[in-house]
């Protein structure tokens, strides 16, 4: 797995404490759900952001994806709460 840009929005961003970062997940992290689980183990700010993982929405390279989406080849993965625009 190569370096991956992670972006966070709204309360996910506030809880983690930064808008984005570049990380290299271990090779056994293959999909979005596993990435969330891996991030949750990195510190309490991540555990807090992802405490209710099923409500977290994700996008790979700016397209909505589900948690079972593979992350191979992704350049940017974003995590955010359900959207409240309009």
């Amino acid at each position, binding site marked *: 797995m190569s370096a991956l840009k992670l*972006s966070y*929005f*709204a*309360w996910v961003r506030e809880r983690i404490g930064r808008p984005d970062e570049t990380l290299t997940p271990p090779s056994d992290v293959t999909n979005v759900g596993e990435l969330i689980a891996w991030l949750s183990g990195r510190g309490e700010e991540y555990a807090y952001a992802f405490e209710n993982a099923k409500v977290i929405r994700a*996008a790979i390279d*700016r*397209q*909505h994806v589900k948690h079972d989406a593979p992350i191979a080849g992704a350049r940017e993965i*974003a995590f*955010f*709460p*359900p*959207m*409240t*625009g*309009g």
Partner: protein
Amino acid sequence: MDAQIRVAIQHEDFDVAREIEALTQGRGDVGAVVTFTGLCRDEAGTLEALELEHYPGMAEDEILRVAQQAAQRWPLLGATAIHRYGKVLPGENIVLVIATSPHRRAAFEAAEFIMDYLKTRAPFWKKEHPRDGSIGEWVEAKDVDDSAAERWDV
């Protein structure tokens, strides 16, 4: 029918009359213009402002996708969607959707479809800044918005 589609994500306010004119001027085939404008409510006087956060790039892409889907589904002549970001005060505009068509039904339905999908797919989040100076809360998504979008059965 090749619809004239315009999507903009901007902090500045928009001018509804000018946006309508951009879809109607110089052509005689438009028989119906439907506009929807979403405004910031004051929540019974308790709200100082809304802060609208968005995901640059993806917000444009998603709204454009929704407008293009509408243009495939209904015989539209034009569709405009403008969404503001940043701080918005009560009474100010947040979002504008315009659909134009030869006939009213397509314009009504397409405008509603674009709004329903924009709410559930476009990456925007609202944070409330209360007037009493307390820490603002992020607005929670409503299940009713998901069901409103699902009824179109895309």
